[in-house]
């Protein structure tokens, strides 16, 4: 310790034993201990003593430079604001197409497609398990014909499109590629993202189809195909968002997400790809929760840790391989059904954390999402929230504005260190896939979720409107309703398609897909050909189910 720090140490001790002791003797602090939303202890005061070991160039560096703690671009939001990307989709392709065009007219800069559950799990709308679910949490897509409607009058060379699709990601990407071709847009001009992150589906989100091994093959096939043919496409969005929604802590969100990332990189390297060929197209997706400082620290820690992992563990050379680019969504689980307008304020704080944390794109939740799908009015307020932060708050004028804050740097260090320890533990278990198969990650998440619930029920944690400041007899807002006719209309359309298309061609393409699936060849070309003949999502996934089998989850609680 330098002489200056020694002196500061003594001064701080004197402050604690003097003024602080005197004040707390008269007025005890509100709580015995203060903790973050994740339960990490928070000190009364942070000083240079807490970041005495911080080495500016090694640990923070400059924006756009390793280890990217301060951001991935040299000018960040001074150059270009984050992409405002509202996740949307419901009912039929026609209705969703209308909402997309509305959002684009309102100044949204990218699309984000929400699919209904049958689509996400590879069932056509007329499958028995789809009953009641068609068009509910997103748009129903059965074939290329629905995609043509979904993107009608939206030029695919002008927008970037993010698709929240995982197990059948290859099929939806294939549809997008063929659709673009029909619009006259070559695949190397396409920009967008598929979520394509199956590992978090096993632990948190639940839309898995196939077992881990063939699922990882599908993912590496997409990496390889896109690096050659769709070079601007983000081939995966490695997601902590849903793991956090399932109840984990900030540290666990970073650790489990990056551990999944490591598993994908390892699988692709093992399949013979060069790390610098595919790593620049990996992207990430995080949650923005309520604890502002902890969240900002989390984003910074994740960026630094990923850069270090890619450099040290995988020997990546291309700087783009080291950059953790991420999308953020505000925390759905933080929304309350009680006094829903309060959620606008919650979302504002969460979105602010994402902006201060250097996100590349952002979805802000709507106030009414603890009650139903959002109305158009609610979605507009959510979009305006981001626009106000971007254009009015001033936080976009300088890069990484909270850097150097004693508390934020200290939390950044702590989150990184704790995440490193978790990843070590996961490595010892054999990596993320093995840790999931053993139920380790699921159990860790559930412990945190249960601890949080108990903290709320004991009033240790206050949630405004839920366990404090409640009101009786609330007036309920207008909610969006998905019409039940959607299911009938969609299944009728599907029936017509099966009649109309050239079924000989469809069957031949599905047979070709089956044969390819039985070899080690890349699956993308066969899937693209099947899609082109208007084979449905369900038909394609059924072929793959027959060859690959289905995932059998272990039930842990």
């Amino acid at each position, binding site marked *: 310790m330098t002489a200056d720090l020694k002196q500061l140490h003594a001064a701080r001790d004197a402050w604690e034993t003097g003024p602080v002791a005197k004040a707390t003797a008269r007025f005890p602090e509100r709580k015995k201990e203060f903790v973050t939303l994740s339960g990490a202890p928070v000190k009364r005061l942070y000083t240079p003593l807490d970041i005495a070991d911080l080495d500016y160039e090694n640990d923070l560096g400059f924006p756009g430079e390793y280890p990217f703690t301060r951001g991935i671009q040299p000018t960040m939001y001074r150059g270009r604001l984050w992409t405002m990307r509202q996740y949307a989709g419901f009912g039929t392709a026609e209705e969703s197409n209308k909402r997309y065009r509305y959002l684009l007219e309102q100044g949204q800069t990218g699309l984000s497609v929400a699919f209904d559950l049958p689509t996400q799990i590879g069932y056509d709308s007329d499958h028995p398990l789809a009953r*009641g679910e068609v068009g509910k949490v997103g748009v129903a897509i059965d074939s290329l014909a629905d995609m043509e409607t979904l993107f009608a009058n939206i030029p695919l060379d002008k927008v970037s499109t993010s698709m929240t699709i995982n197990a059948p990601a290859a099929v939806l990407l294939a549809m997008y590629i063929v659709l673009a071709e029909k619009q006259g847009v070559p695949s190397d001009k396409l920009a967008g993202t598929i979520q394509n992150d199956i590992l978090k589906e096993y632990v948190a989100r639940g839309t898995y189809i196939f077992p881990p091994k063939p699922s990882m093959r599908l993912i590496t096939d997409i990496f390889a195909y896109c690096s050659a043919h769709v070079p601007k496409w983000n081939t995966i969005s490695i997601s902590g968002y849903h793991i956090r929604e399932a109840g984990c802590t900030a540290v666990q969100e970073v650790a489990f997400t990056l551990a999944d990332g490591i598993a994908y990189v390892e699988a692709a390297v093992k399949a013979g790809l060069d790390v610098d060929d595919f790593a620049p197209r990996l992207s990430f997706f995080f949650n923005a929760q309520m604890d502002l400082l902890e969240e900002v620290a989390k984003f910074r820690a994740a960026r630094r840790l990923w850069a270090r992992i890619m450099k040290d563990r995988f020997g990546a050379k291309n700087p783009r391989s080291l950059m953790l680019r991420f999308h953020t969504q505000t925390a759905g689980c933080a929304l309350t059904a009680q006094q829903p307008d309060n959620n606008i304020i919650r979302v504002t704080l969460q979105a602010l954390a994402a902006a201060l944390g250097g996100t590349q794109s952002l979805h802000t939740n709507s106030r009414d999402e603890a009650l139903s799908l959002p109305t158009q009015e609610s979605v507009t307020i959510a979009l305006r929230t981001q626009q106000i932060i971007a254009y009015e708050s001033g936080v976009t004028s300088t890069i990484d504005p909270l850097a150097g804050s004693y508390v934020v740097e200290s939390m950044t260090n702590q989150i990184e260190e704790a995440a490193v320890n978790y990843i070590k533990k996961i490595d010892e278990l054999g990596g993320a896939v093995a840790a999931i198969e053993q139920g380790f990650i699921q159990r860790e998440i559930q412990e945190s979720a249960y601890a949080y619930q108990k903290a709320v029920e004991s009033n240790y944690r206050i949630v405004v409107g839920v366990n404090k400041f409640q009101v009786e007899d609330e007036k309920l807002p207008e909610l969006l309703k998905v019409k039940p006719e959607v299911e009938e209309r969609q299944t009728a359309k599907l029936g017509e398609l099966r009649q109309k298309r050239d079924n000989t061609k469809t069957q031949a393409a599905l047979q070709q897909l089956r044969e390819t699936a039985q070899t080690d060849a890349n699956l993308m070309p066969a899937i693209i050909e099947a899609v082109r003949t208007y084979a449905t999502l369900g038909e394609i996934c059924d072929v793959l189910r027959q060859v690959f089998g289905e995932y059998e989850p272990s039930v842990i*609680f």
Partner: protein
Amino acid sequence: MERPIRVLIAKPGLDGHDRGAKVLARAMRDAGMEVVYTGLRQTPQQIVEAAIQEDVDVIGLSCLSGAHNHLFPEVTRLLKEQNATDILVIGGGIIPEEDIPSLKAAGISEIFTPGTPTSVAIDYIKEHVTK
């Protein structure tokens, strides 16, 4: 000694949100109940079969995907078919207020919406279960 209350926590349909279901399952277990959790993607048929096989007193249905109006009444209909209406059926999830009357009319005895403490659901079961 009295037999503990047996509960089946079930996820009908394709919804993958099971944080609430699992937290509640655990809270019920901590409250002395015997709890079976079905896991995701159960059909109403599978849920009713499991409930009868496990001889439960209560079925707790959880759905956040909006498919509750189809799935919940299907469970109670099948219970009637099986002469198992003595099983108490409760539900939870993202369920708009206006859907609740028709769900209750279909035999779901109570619906718990977001923000409900687990203790409220547990107390409800203790008061209403018929053994």
